[in-house]
């Protein structure tokens, strides 16, 4: 078996300032090449922090990062200078939630994509423009030649997100990080972008980490789902298992609070309480104060991460325990 493309071990991230916030706590996961991982969680669960740490986007002065990140056999936390520049965009690139904020408003989208290509490849301006135009056509922007010279504000939300994807893929990265790429979009546009991402992933064979709070969107694109809560991955497994037979009570609660035709008019099985303050995490399992099956052990010690086949789980009282190893 070849080495995984991404391997994260015991990654912890703390932000220091007036108070110290533990945004990530000993997160570990691996991602093979060509695989799509959905990171699912609510706000403050550490999904976006994971992505930004992968790109080293946090200011070093106020951020303490511990653990190991390896992407394509490079030790990401040790990269410096030119190496880091080539890594960002070349090996790994990112699609942001707000395409309007991620583009520079004073350059046309074509210029911005061409600039990114020139920064990574020894290539003249004319061929960079050609490549940029091909990228715009590839993400199915109608009349790409005209849109090439458009400023970001002249495009609609869906179009801007397509341009953002074109920019991210311009340097053929091995790993694409998508941070809630469809949250700001309308329903009919969201499904177009999800289908586009799926198609491009299949064509290029890149790996994708897809962050979302919407289980539906994760199911549409991901092979595996990792559920995050308060800076930890509480459960990880193939999409069908997570949706069909969740093991962690939090995952089950998330699925139960998804409204639809089935529970019309009936009270929802809501998870009580709200997510914990990351500056003052409770000892033990962070979900224990909201969990129906919590015991004394849960609030004392954090459950170890156990794994079986391609699934991992961190819970003392799972709904469906792993079968005892034979």
């Amino acid at each position, binding site marked *: 078996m070849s080495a995984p493309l991404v391997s994260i071990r015991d990654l912890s991230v703390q932000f220091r300032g007036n108070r110290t916030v533990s945004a990530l706590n000993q997160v570990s996961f691996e991602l093979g090449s060509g695989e799509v991982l959905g990171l699912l969680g*609510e706000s403050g669960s550490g999904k976006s922090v994971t992505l930004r740490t992968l790109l080293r986007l946090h200011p070093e002065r106020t951020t303490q990062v511990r653990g190991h990140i390896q992407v394509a056999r490079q030790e990401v936390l040790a990269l410096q200078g030119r190496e880091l520049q080539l890594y960002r965009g070349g090996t790994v690139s990112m699609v942001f939630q707000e395409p309007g904020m991620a583009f520079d408003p004073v350059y046309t989208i074509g210029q911005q994509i061409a600039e990114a290509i020139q920064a990574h490849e020894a290539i003249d301006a004319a061929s960079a423009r050609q490549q940029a135009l091909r990228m715009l056509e590839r993400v199915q922007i109608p009349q790409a030649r005209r849109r090439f010279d458009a400023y970001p504000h002249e495009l609609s939300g869906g179009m801007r997100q397509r341009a953002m994807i074109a920019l991210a893929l311009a340097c053929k990265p091995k790993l694409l990080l998508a941070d809630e790429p469809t949250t700001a979009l*309308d329903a009919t546009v969201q499904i177009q972008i*999800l*289908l586009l991402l799926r198609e491009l992933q299949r064509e290029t064979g890149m790996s994708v980490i897809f962050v979302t709070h919407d289980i539906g969107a994760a*199911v549409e694109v991901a092979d595996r789902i990792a559920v995050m809560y308060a800076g930890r991955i509480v459960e990880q497994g193939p999409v069908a298992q997570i949706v069909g037979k969740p093991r962690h009570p939090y995952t089950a609660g998330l699925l139960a609070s998804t*409204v639809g035709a089935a529970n019309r008019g009936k009270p929802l099985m*809501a998870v009580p309480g709200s*997510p914990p303050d990351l500056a003052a995490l409770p000892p033990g399992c962070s979900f224990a104060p909201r969990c129906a099956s919590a015991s004394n052990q849960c609030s004392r010690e954090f459950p170890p991460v156990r794994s079986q086949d391609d699934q991992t789980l961190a819970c003392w009282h799972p709904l469906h325990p792993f079968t005892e190893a034979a």
Partner: protein
Amino acid sequence: MNTTVAYQAPVHDRGGPAQPLLVVRDLKKYFAVRGGLLERTRKFVHAVDGVSFSVLKGKTLGIVGESGCGKSTTARLIARLMTPDSGSMIFDGDGVAEFGGIELKEFRRNLQMVFQDSFASLNPRLTIAETIAYGPRVHGVPAAQANRLARELLARVGLEPGQFGSRYPHELSGGQRQRVNIARALAFSPRLVILDEAVAALDKSVQAQVLNLLQELKAERQLTYLFISHDLHVVHYLSDQVMVMYLGQVVESGPVEHIYGKAAHPYTRALLSAVPSMDPHHRTQASPLNGDPPNPINPPSGCRFRDRCPHAQPVCEARTPTLMAVGGNVSHQVACHMNDLLSGQFETIQEISV
């Protein structure tokens, strides 16, 4: 003073149970767009263009549509946060702000609104107990009584008054702030509550709590909701009647089971099939619609959906479809030429529904 008496008067049902609580007729709002220096003609955004509907007592009307379809503008026009260009409203049998009708001030006491951004809609310099008591005090309720009311309401929405009453909005989480907004809306014992994307910004697990609270309060206080959302799941869960808007117009309206079960308008169908599937073995294969919603500044002539409609024909460009009953069912209405056998559209709804 007169206002105090009016405030304390118990809410009574004037028109009887069959009288819709709110009837809206032909509401219009155009926003002028500043053109370029050399542009002669002034352009207008047709934000709400001839919207009519009624909300039955004790029911929930859900309004769905994509951004820019005019659903929030409709809410603001009803609450009179903006003045409509034309159109009229009848609240429980009385014309709103008309001669011989209900006064605007009294109408507003009967109608309260909860907004999407829970932080922006609270005054950051007032504690949440002060925020809730503020409205009643303005309407002449003595301070002590208003404060007592605020504490009762806080307890009702699940926030311990002793613990939370003296906190400021920034000290609360999103879900807690939205509970405060709901409590504030209830301070007037309103009959109609407009919920404008009230749960959209909340996390799933917190959203479920707030939805449960809304359902309880509705049953407890005989409230009527106007629920505006882009989230089709939530609208399905909460609404009795659903109205689908597209580019400032109503394209379809009807009982929730008709809209979600036998939608007649191609746009409604597309919207419903754009919802991500929850089954990893049956993923969505093709997008139901291409492109983005068009610009409301220059909406297409005739049917506004025709640019994106897979069934569009010449008649759709020539004539604007009107809302008509579907298959003799008066409560389910659709504005589509395919529903009108005399329109000259060759396909019919029955054909495409196979």
